[in-house]
């Protein structure tokens, strides 16, 4: 049976000056699965996601998504409109706007496309959009502060807000770069629950995560990245026992 891959990364290389940040990365993500990328700091995990959203152009290789090569002259907004949303390692939100507006903006992008001259519409008449945004804020436990400035949130809350901003777009592929970093245990668990719930909806995800509890609760498949190369991949159980992985990343920690 032919497997249905949402994303196919083939032969991707990237160097920064003399530093080989990614070397010959090959990675396939199956429809509806959660694919975790783990590895020590500086391994190139964020760089890999950057090449997927045209934040960086790889030196060689291709990244196929929805029949298009994302590395071939695509714009960041074009890639988003294809159905790829990303939660960044450092939260990227709109600090001056209210939480509600922060979540409405991505929803508008999904509904109206990359540009719409909607100057003669009243924002206050967008009731459906507001309800939807409130729904997502509620899912992430932020509904009570919907009208405060996003810039005043804690780092963990900013991250949850960013998650709501991505989820409201119903992306085909969701890229999560350390989504629970800076969160309290309680909120981390909540995030895991949320991500599990989305999984039932069939959304495909790539998640970079240091917290092994999160990784093993969510991942269907794991790739281990070290010094720009994939040193192991497989099902969570394979990775747990993999000697190279223990050595390179997991150390002697009990799993």
């Amino acid at each position: 049976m032919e497997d249905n891959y949402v994303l196919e990364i083939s032969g991707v290389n990237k160097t920064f000056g003399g530093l080989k940040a990614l070397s010959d990365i090959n990675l396939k993500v199956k429809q509806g699965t959660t694919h975790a990328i783990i590895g020590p700091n500086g391994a190139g995990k964020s760089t890999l996601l950057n090449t997927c959203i045209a934040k960086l152009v790889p030196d060689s290789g291709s990244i196929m998504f929805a029949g298009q090569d994302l590395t071939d002259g695509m714009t960041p907004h074009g890639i988003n409109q294809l159905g790829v949303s990303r939660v960044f390692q450092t939260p990227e939100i709109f600090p001056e706007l209210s939480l509600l507006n922060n979540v409405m903006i991505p929803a508008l992008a999904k509904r109206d496309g990359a540009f719409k001259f909607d100057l003669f519409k009243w924002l206050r008449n967008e009731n459906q959009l507001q309800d939807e945004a409130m729904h997502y804020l509620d899912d992430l436990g932020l509904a009570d502060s919907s009208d405060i400035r996003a810039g005043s949130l804690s780092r963990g809350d900013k991250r949850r807000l960013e998650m709501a901003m991505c989820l409201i777009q119903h992306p085909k592929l969701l890229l999560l770069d350390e989504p629970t970093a800076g969160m309290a245990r309680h909120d981390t668990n909540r995030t895991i629950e949320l991500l599990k719930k989305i999984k039932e909806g069939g959304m495909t995800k790539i998640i970079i995560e240091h917290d092994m509890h999160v990784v093993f609760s969510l991942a269907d498949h794991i790739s281990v990245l070290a010094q720009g190369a994939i040193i192991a991949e497989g099902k969570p159980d394979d990775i747990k026992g993999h000697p190279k992985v223990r050595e390179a990343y997991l150390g002697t920690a009990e799993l």
Partner: protein
Amino acid sequence: MDSVNPSSKYKDTLSLIIFIVVVLTAPLWGKFIGAGYPDLLQKFAIFGLFAIGYNILFGLTGYLSFGHAVFLGIGSYTAAWSFKLLTMNPVPAVIFAVLLSGIFAAAIGYVSLKRTGIYFAILTLAFAQMGYNLAYSVLTPITNGETGLRVLRDDPRVLDNALGVQIDGSPVGNFFGIEMTGYSGYYFCAIMLILGFYLAMRVFRSPFGMKLIAIKSNQTRMEYTGYNPRPYLLAAFVISGMYAGLAGALMVIVDPLAGAERMQWTASGEVVLMTILGGVGTLIGPLIGAVVIKYFENIFSAINESGLHATFSFLPEWLENIAVTIVSPFVGDGWHMTLGVLFMIVIIFMPGGIMEAIRRLTAWVKRMRG
């Protein structure tokens, strides 16, 4: 909180009504603050429009243009030519001025928006200085160079002639029989100001306006959220250019003369000051900034040395002379010194401008009341 808030319909309608009443009764209340004459009120409305439009670019997107006076000039020349070739009726003058400045804004904006930050500012400044220099040199047949473009009695005015409209004396704007001088000139400007204010309110309360603020807040996030910021920025640039063109046209409508000095960088800088002084990114702030600056310009620039001597005559003569020496650089032609000092004070102590001062004051009063 920032300017885009889920303001209620009721609140917006109320502010609009208050705005209209205040603008239309200006000749009455203007008297009490020494602004009860049409020339000054016209300036309030014209520069208010300029600043309200400028704020749609600078206030919402954060892109600082240092060349918006070029559109003021384009609007003025277009209106003057409409007066010369077609009719003294201000309506076609306004329409052509807005359209033409919009076209130029699209071209200048298209190029300038290839850069951001300081480089964007410098590009706009370069375009404006180019316009200013062209008006003085190769474009003299259109602009009449240093003398300025005048509307003359024996200009063709084909529409007026075809309709048999007679011009006696020196030509002035004429709105279906109402001469655009004095208070009727002000009321024409006032109606344009009300329309301009209403449009700005629509922008502020629209999804479009929210997206402009989002670009100012985090352009990277906008791009990775599926937006192409460029057309949004260009639209904001063109809209603000059209406001400037309208303001330039109104200058000619109330006083049929267009000169290139209108495009000088100081004029571009002045609208930045007005916007910041009043409150960047607020709906009404830029208009307040424009009114305050024009009001004080009117007072300070009228003071001369002998006036100062009279003011300080209660002092012993040697002290009087010292006082006059200190104050005189700040008045008359030196009014810009005062403006500079005022501006520094605002930037340092109240970066949100007058609107922030009002906000803080009301918050304080509320707290005092318990």
